[in-house]
């Protein structure tokens, strides 16, 4: 007699398409569980023949949530193709844009996507598992603050990148648009507001997550834990940096396995193919592909905010560093961060640490007078013909590798995109939770299925959406203020 089959289709509250297939045997236990990605668009192949300077504008359409990540990885690869170094002001602009983007993006995920499962609890009814449920628990002001913070992040991208969606100004050799003094004043103000928001978020996380023993148990539970390698970008001081650095890999015990510069990535990363998913499975070549298993002998690695914290020696800004130390102290007993954390749900906390770092970075970098310089573009004068650009996307390490002809038209493109790094880990996380919850005697309720999806959501697979817009009948009044503090709108619901 064939087992029962449950499909979660589509997976929701994240970007892209995915489905989870649960096979339940006659005894009611989980027979097996598969995670499948049902889409493939083919960017690597249809980018052939395109001018390499267009790649920062084409590859943004890989993802509309983190187009900034592709914009930066693509332009860094294009810089390398031309062997050109942008002027310092251009690099500062790129990094400031990127931190501004992070400050908005991590906000969206924490409050509206991953947050609800955490804050209102994984078994809460569907109608509660959203930002409204979060707001009900922590206060109405917060919803408005989250919207404003998202708007701040988009505004930084628009000022420097030309458009919030999709940014356009990164060129091989620099940037196409300068920032005026007036725009800089706005950026400084935005940075200050972002730091305040970061402090608020630390407090929110404290009040609703860390002070709730049930949630802490959930974070530390074995069900949501895999001991894998971690990968991330670190700067010259070994601190987390989203825009640039050296890639570092540590094993499940925290020992460094390897480090590499972008152009060396092929020596370290390979991708496996399985017949039931269109998405490939990256793994560490030095360790080898052993299938969907974790541990020191498996080449499976994770590229998440938590992985970035695991591989680094700390955060480069003070508030973030304090929160970094608190995270490692709480979860490992060692505030230096030498011992990696493997609790999947702790990724949410790491995301808060990074949010703080992004906000502090915007505040600091906006003040740099050099960002208003008009020396922002060095047109290339010769060509190398090949280049690799690596940045940290919010969802993981992003690699763009281009080969071009002598005129700079793409001959070959290879991309390893953020969430792809985590494909194996996501599959394993889902299955482990399913094994724990789908068993004889237990009802496969909506809450159970949601807990299985939570294993996926912790990775923030590319989309954090909806600061709102959700079912939920409640008396509610929200007063929306513009960035200058004036009341713009009051929205009420009485039913």
């Amino acid at each position, binding site marked *: 007699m*064939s087992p029962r089959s449950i499909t979660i289709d589509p997976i*929701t509250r*994240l970007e*892209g*398409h995915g489905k989870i297939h649960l*096979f339940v*045997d006659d005894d009611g236990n989980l027979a097996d569980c598969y995670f499948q990605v*049902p889409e*493939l*668009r*083919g960017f*690597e192949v*249809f*980018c052939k*023949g*395109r*001018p390499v300077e267009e790649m920062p504008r084409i590859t*943004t*359409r*890989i993802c*509309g*949530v983190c*187009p900034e990540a592709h914009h930066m990885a693509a332009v860094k690869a*294009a810089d390398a193709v*031309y062997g050109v170094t942008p002027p310092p002001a251009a690099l500062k602009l790129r990094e400031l844009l990127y931190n501004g983007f992070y400050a908005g993006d991590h906000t969206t995920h924490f409050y509206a996507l991953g947050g609800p499962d955490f804050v209102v609890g994984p078994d809460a009814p*569907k109608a509660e598992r959203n930002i409204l449920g979060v707001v009900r628990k922590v206060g109405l002001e917060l919803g408005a603050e989250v919207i404003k913070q*998202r*708007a701040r992040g988009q505004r930084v991208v628009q000022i420097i990148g*030309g*458009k919030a*969606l*999709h940014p*356009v*100004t990164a060129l*091989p050799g620099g940037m*196409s*648009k300068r920032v005026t003094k007036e725009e800089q004043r706005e950026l400084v103000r935005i940075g200050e507001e972002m730091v305040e928001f970061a402090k608020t978020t630390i407090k929110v996380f404290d009040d609703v997550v860390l002070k709730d023993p049930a949630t802490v148990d959930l974070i530390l539970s074995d069900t949501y834990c895999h001991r894998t390698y971690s990968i991330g970008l670190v700067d010259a001081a070994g601190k987390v940096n989203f825009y640039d650095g050296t890639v570092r890999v540590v094993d499940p015990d925290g020992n460094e396995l390897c480090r590499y510069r972008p152009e060396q990535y*092929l020596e370290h990363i*390979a*991708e*496996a*193919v399985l017949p*039931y998913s269109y998405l*490939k499975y990256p793994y560490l070549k030095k360790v080898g*592909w052993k299938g969907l298993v974790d541990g020191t002998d498996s080449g499976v690695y994770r590229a998440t905010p938590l992985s970035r914290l695991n591989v680094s020696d700390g955060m480069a800004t003070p508030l973030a560093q304090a929160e970094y130390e608190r995270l490692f102290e709480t979860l490992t007993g060692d505030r230096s961060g030498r011992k990696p954390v493997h609790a999947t749900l702790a990724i949410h906390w790491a995301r808060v640490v990074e949010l703080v770092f992004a906000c502090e970075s915007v505040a600091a970098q906006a003040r740099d007078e050099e960002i208003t310089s008009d020396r922002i573009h060095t*047109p*290339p004068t010769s060509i190398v013909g090949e280049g690799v650009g690596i940045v940290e996307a919010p969802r993981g390490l992003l690699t763009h590798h281009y080969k071009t002809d002598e005129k700079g*038209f793409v001959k070959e493109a*290879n991309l*390893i995109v953020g969430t792809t790094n985590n494909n194996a880990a996501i599959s394993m996380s889902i299955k482990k939770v399913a094994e724990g919850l789908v068993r004889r005697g237990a009802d496969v309720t909506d809450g159970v299925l949601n807990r299985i999806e939570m294993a996926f959501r912790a990775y923030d697979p*590319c989309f954090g*959406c*909806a*600061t709102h*817009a959700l*079912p939920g009948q409640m008396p509610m009044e929200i007063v*929306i203020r513009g960035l200058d503090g004036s009341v713009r*709108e009051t*929205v009420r*619901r009485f039913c």
Partner: protein
Amino acid sequence: MAKPKLALYWAASCGGCEIAVLDTELEILKIADFFDIVFWPCAMDFKYDDVRALADGEITLTLFNGAIRSSENYEIAKLLRQKSVVLCAFGSCASDGCIPGLANLTTLEAIQRYVYEDSPSTVNLEKIRPQTEWTVPAGTLRLPRLWNTVRTLPQVVDVDYIIPGCPPQPDRIKEVVAAVMDILKNDKPLPPKGTVLGADVRACCEECPRKRDVKKLKKFVRPHEIVQDPEICLLEQGMVCMGPATRAGCGAKCVQAGVPCRGCYGPPANVRDQGAKMASAIAGVIDSDDPAEVQALIDSIPDSVGTFYRFTLPSSTLRRRQP
């Protein structure tokens, strides 16, 4: 009184249209207030079965973004058409094919061969390819079939309105939503079927603030080859700017940021093929009557097919490259 039902769905897309909806900031709260959102996979937990359980025509409005390039994209397009009173092609992927449409310059086989075999980071000695049906000990797993040719939403189902842009700019979305709510609240008539909403009828040049003069080109340049003059029309400076063949509505943000338009709002009104129209425009500015010089200039256009048809290949006259 029951609230009108709203659905938002993404097919082969990037999620940018969803973010554009969020970037309407305040408006999204009004939307949540006015509508009962019954399906929005990025934001809410309703599944395909929940949509199947609705009655035909129960959804008042569906905003469908994303191109159609798999059997799943097609299935859900048909499903939402069936369950919706009004179906909008939301964004450039749905209306014209957009960037995923560039896959029509190659073939599915070429894509799969590179992705699963030839890419330098792929290790796949057994040449495994993902299968639409794969049997494992516990049962059978399925994947949708990918299509060789990317299609637009109007090419596969009956569509009521088009909202162009990659993505539709948040200001335009606000206008469209306000108009929709006005129509529903006050029982006003719908615009004629096929109307393009949230955009102008003219070309993007009308929105561009740069100074325009006579255009006579003896040379084409690529955006990174020069330090451009921020005041003067980019086409005049030698860059191929799609502005003349692109529908206005975006606010000309790209050209104001120093890079040429790439045509994401699709063709202006009454233009059927954006790329052909751009060819006509470019032919108009080439400054030569000598056939050999003309041919040399044409050959020097950087990636004419990939630039003229960047966003509209599936909806163009020829639709795809011949194998």
